[in-house]
């Protein structure tokens, strides 16, 4: 056993234990740690954005353009900066409509850039991957591929809203919801695993980095 000599490890260990104290009961120490976490993460983000965005992408280019009397360069930086600043009008209820300008611009940009690759990734490639090609009755993977095809088609039936779920449509969509539930089961299992991993990570920190019990 070799206790850590780093003050930061001790602070982190103290905060970890105060957060876990919630498992017994809500208490002021837990709330203290929660507030420290929120404050620290916001502070970190502000520092990163200030040093890696505001200064290199706005401050320095504006200063350089001004010093060099490069007026087109100045406008090139100033216009997007001003548009971005319109976001702050959210704080003024009467002028809050001005915030819609940058939002509209961003929405337009994101829609434009995402439509084509989204169709290619989520539809073309996935549909092509589901089509049964080179079916070989003696190969197990071919039967898995068939099961996949049945799963996809029946699930699509479940999410088909233009037809009543009756007769063959009803039966197929019922099969579809079975596939969906099995997928949820797998996802649930994985999520439990993820949560346990987080606990293990913290306990490893306490036992290895702080107390030095673990090698």
């Amino acid at each position: 056993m070799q206790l850590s000599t780093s003050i930061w490890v001790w602070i982190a260990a103290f905060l970890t234990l105060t957060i876990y104290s919630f498992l017994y009961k809500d208490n002021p120490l837990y709330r203290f740690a929660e507030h420290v976490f929120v404050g620290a993460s916001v502070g970190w983000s502000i520092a990163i954005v200030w040093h890696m965005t505001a200064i290199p992408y706005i401050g320095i280019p504006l200063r350089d353009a001004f010093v060099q009397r490069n007026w087109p360069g100045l406008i090139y930086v100033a216009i997007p900066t001003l548009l971005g600043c319109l976001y702050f009008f959210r704080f003024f209820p009467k002028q809050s409509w001005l915030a819609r300008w940058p939002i509209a611009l961003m929405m337009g940009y994101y829609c434009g850039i995402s439509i084509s690759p989204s169709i290619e990734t989520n539809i073309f490639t996935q549909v092509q991957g589901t089509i049964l090609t080179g079916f070989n009755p003696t190969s197990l993977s071919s039967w898995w591929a068939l099961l996949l095809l049945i799963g996809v088609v029946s699930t699509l039936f479940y999410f088909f809203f233009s037809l009543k779920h009756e007769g063959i449509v009803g039966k197929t969509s019922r099969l579809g919801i079975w596939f969906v539930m099995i997928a949820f089961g797998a996802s649930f299992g994985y999520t439990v695993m993820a949560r346990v991993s987080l606990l293990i990570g913290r306990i490893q920190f306490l036992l290895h980095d702080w107390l030095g019990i673990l090698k």
Partner: protein
Amino acid sequence: MKFWLFMDKLDRRWLFLAIGLSVIIPSITNMRFPVTTTPPTLNLWNFVDSLKYTKKPLIIICDYSPSTSPELQPMAHALFRHALEADIPVFLYGGLYTEGFGLARIAEETVLEEIDYQKANGDSVIYGEDYVFLPFVPGGLAVIAGMGEDFIGTFRVDARGDSLKNLPMMDNVRRLEDIGLIVDIAGSAVSRTWMVYAGTRYGTPVGVGTTAVSAAEYYTFLQTRQFVGMMGGMKGAAEYEELNASNLNIEVRKQAGIAMASQNFVHLLIIFMVILGNISFFVLKRNKERRL
């Protein structure tokens, strides 16, 4: 009946204690379980390893926050270690959000100290030739689009503030097309963003390291090879560490590998609890019906 009533009324804090103990006991008793490698991790390892022949750079993206770092940080370490040992040029990048920058920095420091700034072939690790640390750039999706069109123009400087243009590793990198592989390590859906834009739009192979929560969802994209491979949760990280150890003879502390014993014990406990809980549910239900 008494037993089932007792189970039904059991204070949940006893369960927390049981879970806590099943993590601590295997850890302090130094239990070890063999780690078997699954195809998604093996495919990723092989793809990364193949880059040593093409010398095309690998980008390791730490797109996560401290809350998911227990699962994801070992992945970043294992990947960075692999790239350095196999002499693959590598970019370390904190990703599209601010939090990842600090975690990528931890990965850099930890791995370099572990290997004592030396590669397996005895050469020293040289910044700018063997690896480059990229800075945080705001813009989300626009950053990926920027990297796709003009890599150097998007970042301009590295995380140390030096001009990217002057670094030897940049000689063969103009845009994403020139990158051998992107591995996005993330606990959110941002990996899909990299797949859609870097993968489909700019044709760069993309691999993923993800929390177990998202792993089930990503199998769909592994099947269509839109992700070349995947490390799923702490188990995925442990597999990658194991592959590093067996193929590259890297002997370091296996952060994720050590955790597998605890993970197995907790899983057994949970399976037991689920079975017990279900039996309790049906016994109590039948008892209630009888009384009615």
